[in-house]
């Protein structure tokens, strides 16, 4: 086995740019996806029936179709319907919608785990249903499912490799671009895999730190 990693040294900047795109797109998608997830979960537990149906349909649609098909539908399909967007925008939209679907279901599970007593406590203080959701129920619910959420975030980070298909110049694209020119497929893939591993571990640590901070109020109960 002859490893020629030195053949890749000229490509450091390319790898760096690719990793930056991967992190940037994932971070943006995680932010929007989380918002979608909270609204989606609220929708699924709403007292307004059409909202419940809509959120339910969204979850089923996203969770029962492959991510690459969703991406191709947005990038190649929507222009037919007159909605044309660039590859970065399409990738961001597809990743956000995809994460939103999964996050909705995860957060809904968190909401379900909150006892009826918490809601009633909110109402007895004179809070409306929305205020109770936002001020009393939401944060403990998120805390319950936070590990599941973070692993979904990591999945989105790794799944972002798929958007190389539509020529978004992220890490996987860079890897395939480089190996199509130097024919060092093994070495290039090795480097790409190592960068993904570092990114994933970094995300994991970061989310753990965020979690400790956001849910610090409950620390003493453990």
């Amino acid at each position: 086995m002859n490893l020629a990693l030195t053949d890749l040294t000229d490509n450091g900047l390319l790898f760096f740019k690719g990793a930056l795109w991967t992190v940037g797109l994932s971070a943006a998608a995680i932010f929007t996806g989380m918002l979608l997830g909270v609204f989606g979960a609220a929708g699924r537990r709403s007292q307004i029936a059409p909202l419940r149906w809509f959120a339910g349909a969204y979850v089923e649609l996203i969770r029962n179709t492959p991510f690459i098909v969703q991406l191709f539908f947005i990038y190649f399909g929507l222009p037919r319907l007159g909605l044309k967007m660039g590859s970065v925008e399409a990738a961001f939209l597809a990743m956000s919608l995809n994460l939103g679907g999964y996050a909705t279901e995860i957060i809904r599970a968190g909401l379900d785990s909150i006892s009826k007593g918490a809601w009633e406590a909110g109402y007895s203080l004179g809070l409306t249903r929305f205020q109770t959701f936002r001020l009393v129920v939401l944060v403990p619910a998120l805390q319950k499912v936070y590990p599941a959420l973070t692993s979904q975030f990591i999945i989105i980070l790794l799944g972002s490799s798929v958007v190389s298909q539509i020529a978004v110049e992220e890490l996987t694209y860079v890897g395939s671009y480089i190996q199509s020119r130097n024919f060092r497929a093994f070495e290039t893939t090795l480097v790409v895999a190592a960068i993904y591993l570092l990114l994933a571990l970094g995300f994991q640590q970061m989310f753990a730190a965020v979690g400790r901070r956001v849910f610090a109020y409950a620390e003493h109960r453990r």
Partner: protein
Amino acid sequence: MLSSLRRIALTGCVLGLAALASVSAKADALDDIMKTKVLRVAVPQDFPPFGSVGTDLQPRGYDIDTAALIAKELGVKLELVPVTSANRLPYLQTKKVELIISSLGKNPEREKAIDFTVAYAPFYSGVFGPAAAKIAGPADLAGKSIGVTRGALEDLELSKIAPPTADVRRFEDNNTTISAFLSGQVSLIATGNVVAAAILARNPPTRPEPKFVIKDSPCFIGLAKDEPKLLEKVNAIIKKARGDGSLDAIAKKWLGAPIPADLPT
């Protein structure tokens, strides 16, 4: 006594073999074809639109039509011999066929082994786009978006010649590149003329018309070395077919465009 008899028999055999060998070496391929009234041609069957097997299980394509045209001009029966790109030359060198019409490109290594006629089919990588796009050369790509398959010949060449402001989008595979062009995500596509022909055949809303050539590698007919009569005859047939439009008809049928004027003769 016995041993001398044996020696005579052996000598006879050797002489006979040598005579046979010299006869086949002297024979002229064109004379043989005219004598047996059969032209054997190596054609592809796995490379549409040059050669593939139709739904009726018969071979069809640009190369098959060209072979038929030559056989007709010679007034002989055509025998198609399906070959792969790897065994094309051995079939010719072992005299199993007289001609290779199998989208064969010319290169110095092959020229050492066999002879080539004039070009009979265009085969090139180029930039394609809608008729309205005014693109005459690499410089016109400035500010335009061009779809290309990552790592393909077109990608490597385009990366060298495209101006820095050209937006070269590299897609994972051929089909994704085509989809990007057809859905309008890129305004031009860099690919082979054969791929462009395959897209045109599907009558798409945005048509990939030829703009300029990136790399040209036309197809030639291959034949055995030192067959000047056959070479001359086939060359004459191709030139006539280019003149009277019959080769153009084949090109339009299979590649969706007539023979480019700059195809070497």
